[in-house]
């Protein structure tokens, strides 16, 4: 490991905090009650916002209880599933298709539509040779905005449930959706797109270019409206690439700097939401404690992945080639990695993308060493709560916090409280469903896949690695991440099983979270006393990390022994 590589990662962490903290303050203002865009300078923005509510016929002042909020989320999201499916099926007959892409097959269209409306962005397809520009920008990229905004809206509603001291409502979905889209995601996407264009990411409606190479071959160079899509794919923790090899492709990620910008974009909003939460519930120290717990797990991931990859894979070590870092190379396991990123920037990315539910990759996961690849595998399985998906990460963390507070309460023999609200049987039930449903489902679906002929047809690599591929596929889709051990192949069976994983993995925790918010909003706030368990100190950080490790961590362990651990012992 090089000192330079470690310094890059430390700088990443520092810049991430420096940017996400003010963004969190800004977001807390965006989602505060009443008008956000007002006054002499921003009044026109408020007028546009009100125009939107008039156009769709809703009263922004009318608040919703958790059931109404959840219903609106579903009623808004499901038609998008149909629309995205339809666009893919008929893209051959529509406009903005300069490279004459054919219609996408039914099973792939359904999997992809479910993938993008659930903020997963699992890809059984290669974008640059499957999707028309219309599908990419008006289908997939729209979902990159919308699925992220839905995540933020739901989070904000749940946070209101914790913050409010009276009433039974959580806010208005349409207001939260609009403000996420227009005041948070859009400005950031514009800035990040422009930065990426500057670094070399294409942005054109012209079809592919044809080059006649130096040695006389013909080369097809795919391009398109890439930068505008890549910006929101990272910011919205979506991760679906314009190109098949995702952010490893130079056209998506041309330089060391573009790589740094995209990595920041991956964790920016999820990290900011922690600070936003701290402001909205008037518990900034509690927010820092949550941030610290997330950061510990993040750092642990880098500390395992980077040395493992630098050490190199079994095959490469046996081959005798030079893996040593220095003298003009970054060395290590360069299989399916890019020279301009090298080992440190690829390790940093792999951990960031799997902590967030982003899933974009700047190097192949399938080729990682057993220990290196186990890091994203476990990160996903923890439920994408280490910063996590936009919105969904923090409300996923709430489930663990409720459990941590509950366990602490049992230990000291008092009714557990979280931010003054009593945690009782109902809250624990919702938290348990939210935290445990997805990991259980992942194990069941992976088991079905690995034990049936239909499932085994997707496996690409032999032996224990093939098992890991399968586990990763359902881990990733169930937790709405979208990264892959990409050898895992598309079949009818894998497309439909994955669709089920993504839809349940998105909406079960989402509804459990809103139900938790709905239960909490009705609780009176108890005054802090000497016996109240403090949720803003190091004890809480340790407890929270411990609860995560003891629930999801222990659930994945038996499966780890069958996959990465067996493979790690092979020579």
């Amino acid at each position, binding site marked *: 490991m090089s000192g330079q590589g470690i310094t890059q990662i430390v700088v990443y962490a520092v810049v991430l905090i420096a940017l996400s903290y003010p963004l969190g303050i800004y977001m807390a203002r965006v989602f505060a009650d009443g008008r956000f865009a007002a006054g002499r300078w921003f009044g026109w923005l408020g007028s546009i916002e009100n125009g939107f509510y008039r156009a769709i016929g809703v009263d922004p002042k009318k608040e919703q209880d958790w059931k109404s909020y959840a219903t609106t989320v579903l009623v808004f999201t499901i038609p998008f599933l149909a629309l995205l499916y339809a666009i893919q099926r008929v893209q051959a007959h529509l406009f903005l298709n300069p490279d004459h892409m054919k219609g996408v097959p039914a099973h792939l269209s359904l999997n992809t539509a479910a993938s993008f409306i659930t903020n997963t962005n699992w890809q059984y397809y290669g974008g640059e040779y499957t999707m028309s520009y219309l599908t990419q920008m008006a289908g997939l990229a729209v979902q990159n905005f919308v699925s992220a905004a839905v995540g933020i809206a739901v989070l904000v509603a749940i946070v209101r449930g914790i913050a409010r001291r009276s009433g039974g409502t959580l806010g208005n979905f349409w207001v939260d959706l609009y403000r996420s889209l227009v005041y948070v995601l859009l400005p950031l996407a514009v800035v990040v797109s422009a930065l990426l264009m500057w670094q070399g990411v294409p942005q054109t409606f012209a079809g592919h270019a044809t080059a006649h190479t130096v040695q006389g071959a013909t080369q097809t160079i795919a391009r398109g409206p890439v930068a505008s899509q890549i910006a929101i794919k990272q910011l919205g923790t979506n991760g679906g690439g314009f190109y098949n090899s995702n952010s490893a492709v130079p056209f998506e990620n041309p*330089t060391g700097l573009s790589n740094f910008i995209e990595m920041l974009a991956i964790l920016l909003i999820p990290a900011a939401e922690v600070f936003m939460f701290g402001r909205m519930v008037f518990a900034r120290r509690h927010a820092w404690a949550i941030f610290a717990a997330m950061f510990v797990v993040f750092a642990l991931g880098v500390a395992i992945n980077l040395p493992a990859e630098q050490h190199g894979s079994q095959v490469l070590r046996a081959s005798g080639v030079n893996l040593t870092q220095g003298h003009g190379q970054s060395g290590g396991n360069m299989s399916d990695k890019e020279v301009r990123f090298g080992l440190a920037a690829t390790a940093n990315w792999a951990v960031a993308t799997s902590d967030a539910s982003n899933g974009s990759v700047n190097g192949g996961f399938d080729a990682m060493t057993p220990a290196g690849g186990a890091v994203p595998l476990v990160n996903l399985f923890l439920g994408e709560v280490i910063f996590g998906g936009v919105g969904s990460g923090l409300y996923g963390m709430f489930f663990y916090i409720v459990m941590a507070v509950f366990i602490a309460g049992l230990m000291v023999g008092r009714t557990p409280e979280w931010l003054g609200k009593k945690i009782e049987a109902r809250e624990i039930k919702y938290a348990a469903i939210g935290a445990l449903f997805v990991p259980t489902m992942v194990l069941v679906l992976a088991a079905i896949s690995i034990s049936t002929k239909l499932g085994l047809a997707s496996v690409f690599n032999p032996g224990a690695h093939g098992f890991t591929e399968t586990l990763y596929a359902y881990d990733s889709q169930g937790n709405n991440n979208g990264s892959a051990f990409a050898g895992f192949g598309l079949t009818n069976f894998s497309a439909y099983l994955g669709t089920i994983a993504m839809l349940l993995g998105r909406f079960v925790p989402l509804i459990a979270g809103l139900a938790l918010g709905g239960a909490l909003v009705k609780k009176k706030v108890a005054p802090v006393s000497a016996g109240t368990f403090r949720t803003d100190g190091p004890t809480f950080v340790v407890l929270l990390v411990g609860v995560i490790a003891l629930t999801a961590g222990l659930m994945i362990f038996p499966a780890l022994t069958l996959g990465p651990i067996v493979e790690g012992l092979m020579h």
Partner: protein
Amino acid sequence: MRRVVSSIIAIVLITGFFGFVYPLVMTGFAQVAFKSQADGSLIKVNGKIVGSRLAAQGFTGPRYFHERPSATSPAYNAGATTFANLGPTNPQLAKNVQAQVAAILKLERPYNPGLTVHGIPVDAVTTSGSGIDPDISPAYAALQSRRIAAVRHLPLATVQKLISESTTGRSWGFFGEPGVNVLDLNLALDRTAGGTA
């Protein structure tokens, strides 16, 4: 029912703005502000597109610097990128690496006496993530430089100078790792005296 109507209108409005207005405006901006990048960083020689600065294109024979192996089909397909996806213990990975090692030793040993497998940097024998990684490590460029100098009858110092001119350092001296852009370098070689034969 009102909810459904609201949703449908919202879906139309949102798709219209984020699906069309946003990418159109960004494209307009890119075409004005960053024209070359926006079109794919294409490189033209005598008015003809010979490739992109951001895509490996594959070079064979002793006269050119070679790129990293590619898993795309055909190799270096910038219209269908892919990883190799071979696991760290996959026997096929071992076969591919061994074949690449043998090919490099055969090609470079005449110009690098005493070259062994330990002298081959790892990026030279591994597929890249995209299959079109435009860069090789400075170590792999250095290994190939003696062959290029000998075959093209150029002083080694000239070749080394061209390598350093085609080397992209870390962004701002800090982010990422240095890489040598192979297409850039080979085009520079062809422009140099003793270039195209």
